[in-house]
């Protein structure tokens, strides 16, 4: 940027050289292990019911392949939209210090506590063919969102956005305004500061936010099935396919569940390794 070096130290580089050795008291380790077990035990329950020998047959079924395709398109598009819409929102929440902001912050969190099926119904009321805004979309442009892949993406963004925004907002807030002020002192405008200082300084949190939002979008069921419907190749994602398989062929449901776990586990481990380790 050609800025005087003394004003523009990257604060993230200043950190202790040696990590202190961590002691492991039982009072912490025991509940931590129980906490981990509440996640690991059900996953093991799923894995031990998997019919590994017929796994390939089940997963190469056209229904499953279609659902995987829809799931990847929907979850990746939703995660991308979360970044585009969520970054400015997170920055605003972290930087604008107004009483109103606590209300906005609570609003952003709403989809996290709302049962997804209720969220889907809310989306229908708002953007359905006879909804608040949806009726205008339909009457003026002939656009209907329910029963389309775009509708499934919208349902996924609705449930995933809070995960991205809260992760990134707390990081931007925790990083403080020193770097931004330094950049401003060095002559950078607010947008340049955001792009060249705030974003790089928070890239770890942004990657974490993307990961969380993507994972939430991938597992999304209730809002999708309510708002976007359930049609193979268009809106039937892997979770919907799993639920349907549960109704007819539990063995296939387990296999698809394992596929869903494998895909997300692989992505989460890769992302952690690449961006989130320090």
């Amino acid at each position, binding site marked *: 940027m050609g800025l005087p070096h003394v004003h523009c130290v990257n604060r993230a580089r200043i950190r202790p050289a040696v990590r202190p050795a961590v002691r492991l008291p039982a009072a912490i380790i025991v509940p931590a292990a129980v906490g981990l077990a509440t996640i690991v035990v059900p996953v093991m329950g799923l894995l031990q019911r998997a019919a590994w020998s017929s796994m390939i047959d089940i997963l190469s079924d056209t229904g499953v392949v279609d659902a995987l395709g829809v799931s990847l398109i929907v979850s990746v598009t939703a995660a991308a939209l979360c970044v585009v819409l969520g970054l400015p929102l997170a920055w605003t929440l972290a930087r604008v210090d107004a009483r109103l902001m606590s209300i906005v912050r609570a609003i952003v969190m709403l989809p996290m506590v709302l049962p997804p099926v209720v969220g889907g119904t809310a989306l229908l009321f708002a953007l359905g063919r006879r909804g608040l805004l949806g009726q205008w979309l339909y009457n003026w442009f002939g656009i209907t969102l329910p029963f389309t892949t775009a509708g499934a993406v919208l349902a996924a963004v609705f449930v995933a956005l809070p995960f991205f925004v809260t992760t990134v907002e707390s990081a931007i807030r925790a990083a403080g305004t020193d770097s931004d002020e330094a950049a401003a002192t060095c002559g950078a405008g607010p947008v340049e500061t955001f792009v060249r200082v705030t974003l790089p300084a928070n890239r770890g949190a942004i990657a974490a936010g993307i990961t969380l939002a993507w994972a939430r979008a991938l597992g999304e069921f209730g809002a999708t099935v*309510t708002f976007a419907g*359930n049609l193979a190749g268009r809106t039937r994602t892997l979770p919907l396919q799993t639920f349907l398989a549960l*109704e007819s062929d539990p063995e296939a449901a387990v296999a698809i569940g394992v596929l869903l776990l494998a895909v997300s586990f692989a992505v989460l481990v890769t992302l952690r390794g690449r961006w989130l380790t320090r």
Partner: protein
Amino acid sequence: MVQVVASLRPAVVFVSAVLVVGTLTACSSRRPPTVLAASSLAVALDTFADEFDITFAGSPSLIAQLDAGVQAAVLVVADAESMTKAVATRRVHGEPVVIATNRLALAVSDGNPGSVTSLADLARSDLLVGLCAPEVPCGRLATEELAEADVIAAPDTEDSSVRSLVEKLRLGELDVGLVYRTDADAVQLEVIDEPALDRRTEILAAAIDAEVSGPVTELWDYLTSTALTEHGFGPP
């Protein structure tokens, strides 16, 4: 697999949680008798909701719960194929009984904006059409009816529950759909008269693990009487 867990009853999830912590206690004995019933019976069994612990769900989910060892006194499913699967779990006691029949209705959204007149309209691509997925009882029946009428439907959604179809029709988000007559009646959906929809599916009940006794007898007598016909079901 969040959905799998969500389809189980909270009590079951709670018991699993207790198991994980390793302090299993006998907490099931004080609960009222459990009834597993197909969603289409939700209105008809409403009067028993206080005395019994009734789980309303799709028949396949109910069978999955039986298979997983959920405690229950009575099972009611929406078609014969479901009951065959239930018997395969070896938990059905005695012979299952056909307690009523149900059939499909050609339901349209309020005012019939799509000008639907017959089953053949389900093939129209300009309409938003909803069906049950062929994997669930109402979808099996729909598949048979459509094949018989020689109609290749163009669905925009194939839901795993009749309830969600009914809701979308009620909100006007779907133009037309094939749902159970009883579900259409329960929320007063507009129904197009279609004589071709003449196939009936059987509603079956069975005692689970032991003979029907005690407080469950009253419910069993109700189910096996003609009382269900008051809720739009056909006689057995």
